[in-house]
């Protein structure tokens, strides 16, 4: 009864195009924000921050970024790991070169640098399509990882090639380095995620988002109706890489604190983020969140259940985990090929009509 509008009585464009047309959704949205900003920080401990919340927030940013490119603009990319590495190394170089500038600015600049790199690697997308493009973006992935490994300028000539985040403060509170409080880690990621999500939401429903979707649905047709494919594709690559760069910077500076490029930003990362958006739902912001939550939580949950509750050997649990994750992915795709977001939409549709579905 709560979950419906009392009819279609919209009188302004604003009301018609708002993100949450149903009042209950709006309340829930504000409630989630209030809980995330005002309640969780007081309860979060090191385990929850480091094992679940911070990775979830960071992957959600990356998933939003990739979803813009793949879900909204239809360009499949497997270069996410490489672009995250660009963000991380850009952030590191900025942090160590300009220690007096705020880390927030560094992270945003790192996103900007990644956007430039992403747009450059997006150029082939004008010629290459589909899986050919997906494989072509792997060139970016392998080249960038190799470069960060090889050129010692990027890691300030340290002996092993690892980069370590020095301690930095926002408003007097440490947000990077070992002495960061869990809530501070959580908050900085949350703020970035919220801002990114707002930007993404507003971009995707504006002119530029519509031109992306036109390209996705049929690029030749889009070109005929006057969408410039060069502009649309390159902006999609740039905006997507901007978000991915920010997530890479946060991943390095706030979450792990020290990374090695091949291990942290290898091809596995590219696949992981792609899984997130496919499981979550292509072309849906909610899907980016759902997919990130699913793939961050599931392994931890399975581990906790298998090892801690059932007391099975860890290797057995790890193997079973692969089996279960694999089986779940296939099961979900068979049941709902359009991801968790579609399930959510269906549930909402049902709720809207409930209790009188006819």
């Amino acid at each position, binding site marked *: 009864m709560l979950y419906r509008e009392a009819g279609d009585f919209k009188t302004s464009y604003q009301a018609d195009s708002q993100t949450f047309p149903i009042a209950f959704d709006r309340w829930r949205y504000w409630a989630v924000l209030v809980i995330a900003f005002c309640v969780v920080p007081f309860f979060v401990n090191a385990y929850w921050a480091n094992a679940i919340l911070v990775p979830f927030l960071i992957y959600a940013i990356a998933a939003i970024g990739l979803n813009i490119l793949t879900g909204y603009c239809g360009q499949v990319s497997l270069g996410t790991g490489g672009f995250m590495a660009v963000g991380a190394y850009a952030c590191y170089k900025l942090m160590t070169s300009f220690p007096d500038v705020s880390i927030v600015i560094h992270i945003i600049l790192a996103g900007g640098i990644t956007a430039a790199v992403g747009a450059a690697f997006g150029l082939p997308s004008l010629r290459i399509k589909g899986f050919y493009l997906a494989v072509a973006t792997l060139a970016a992935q392998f080249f960038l990882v190799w470069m960060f490994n090889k050129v010692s300028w990027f890691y300030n000539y340290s002996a092993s090639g690892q980069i370590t985040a*020095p301690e930095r403060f926002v408003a007097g509170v440490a947000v990077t380095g070992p002495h960061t409080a869990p809530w501070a880690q959580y908050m900085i990621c949350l703020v970035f995620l919220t801002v990114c999500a707002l930007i993404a939401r507003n971009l995707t429903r504006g002119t530029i988002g519509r031109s992306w979707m036109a390209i996705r649905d049929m690029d030749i047709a889009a070109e005929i109706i006057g969408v410039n494919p060069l502009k649309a594709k390159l902006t999609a690559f740039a905006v997507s890489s901007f978000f991915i760069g920010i997530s890479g910077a946060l991943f390095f500076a706030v979450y792990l604190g020290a990374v090695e490029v091949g291990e942290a930003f290898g091809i596995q990362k590219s696949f992981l983020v792609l899984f997130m958006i496919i499981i979550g739902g292509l072309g849906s912001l909610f899907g980016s969140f759902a997919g990130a939550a699913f793939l961050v939580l599931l392994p931890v949950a399975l581990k906790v259940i298998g090892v801690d509750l059932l007391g099975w050997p860890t290797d057995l649990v790890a193997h079973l985990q692969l089996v279960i994750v694999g089986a779940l992915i296939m099961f979900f795709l068979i049941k709902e090929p359009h991801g968790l977001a579609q399930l959510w939409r269906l549930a909402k549709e049902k709720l809207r009509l409930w209790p009188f579905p006819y």
Partner: protein
Amino acid sequence: MKMKTLAAMALAGSMTAGTAMADLVIPDLSYRTGPYAAGGVPFSDGYQDYFALLNARDGGIGGEAVRVIECETAYNTERGVECYEATKGEGALIYQPLSTGITYQLIPRTTADNIPLHTMGYGRTSAANGEVFNWVFNYPANYWDAASVAVNYLLDENGGSLDGKTIALVYHNSAYGKEPIRTLEELSAMHGFTLTQLAVDHPGQEQKSQWLQIRRERPDYVLMWGWGVMNQVAVQEAANIGFPMENFIGNWWAGAEHDVTPAGMAANGYKSLNMNPVIDYPVLAEIQSLVHDAGNAAGDGSHLGSVLYVRGMYAAMLAAEAIAKAQEIHGVADVTPAMVRDGMEALEITAARMTELGMEGIGPEFAVTCQNHGGTGQGLVQQWNASAGVWEPLTGFISPDTSVIAPLVAEDSAAFAAESGITPGCL
């Protein structure tokens, strides 16, 4: 939403179940899956079996039972962090992640949380400087020691001079693989040999280019810093191009049974460094009878006595001795992580003690001090006997050239101290 609450409930359940007992808690961040499982499994088996032996034979350490918590990292840094956060609340006394990548994650974290970290023969080399890295220990030896030990061995083979020789380094193109380069460059300038560097990208299944280059350039010796599938392929390729195996020396992570068995007889004569010779230690028989026969073996029990199993057991012995030392210093049985750190810093391993433990000659004698967390850095050279299927120790413990390594350690640790704002000093 639902997933979150489920996980929360599951977590809450596990938390309450875990904290009831007051034992000596030793987390074992192992990897039994993923690309490096073949190395992770025997090490973890040895590590756990030794603590199981202590529990079965002595009732733990100083009368306090040991509880090992195994956590699977799959050699992945994120999983490693999750494991660390999940186990530290249980009162973890000492961490041994067996991964250079995870070590770099844990160095700042353990330092902030005041839990000692032992990285035995891996990890950050400059952690040997205990004044900068108060909570990190890498005794008995590190990568730079390994490079120097290998060169010293070759010096010895060549009557004290490597002038005009060429040595090729085949390395895993990662933080781990790049570690020895600096040291080898210093040593090449000092001893007049030419160093050729050959990088192999992860995972290292295709090394034809590198080995064709070796075949063209015919270096006198090849050193290898490899791990995982890279080792097996390199040994096979070296045999393929007919490189004399006795001139091919791996480091101590490229010298286990599974590195050479896939190549069969062709691997005969391949050498590697080791820090724990594989001989018939009496303690292995005790583990067999008290742990394996009792059905308490970690894993399937098939790795007993292999190179990495012995290394894991050695690591466990060093941890147990440090805990015993801590109990002695502080006079309590139920020690805290900070006390264990004191125990590690005062650790002294003597030949008599190793014999007493049934591990005569498993490692060099060494004493840890606040200034030196790295031990003596000694290592030995072993050779693979393919027909017998055993690694035979060729030499006794060889000392590294500390005059080369000490300045490098000082330099790197000073850089770290400056970068992270640490004032060097003892605790």
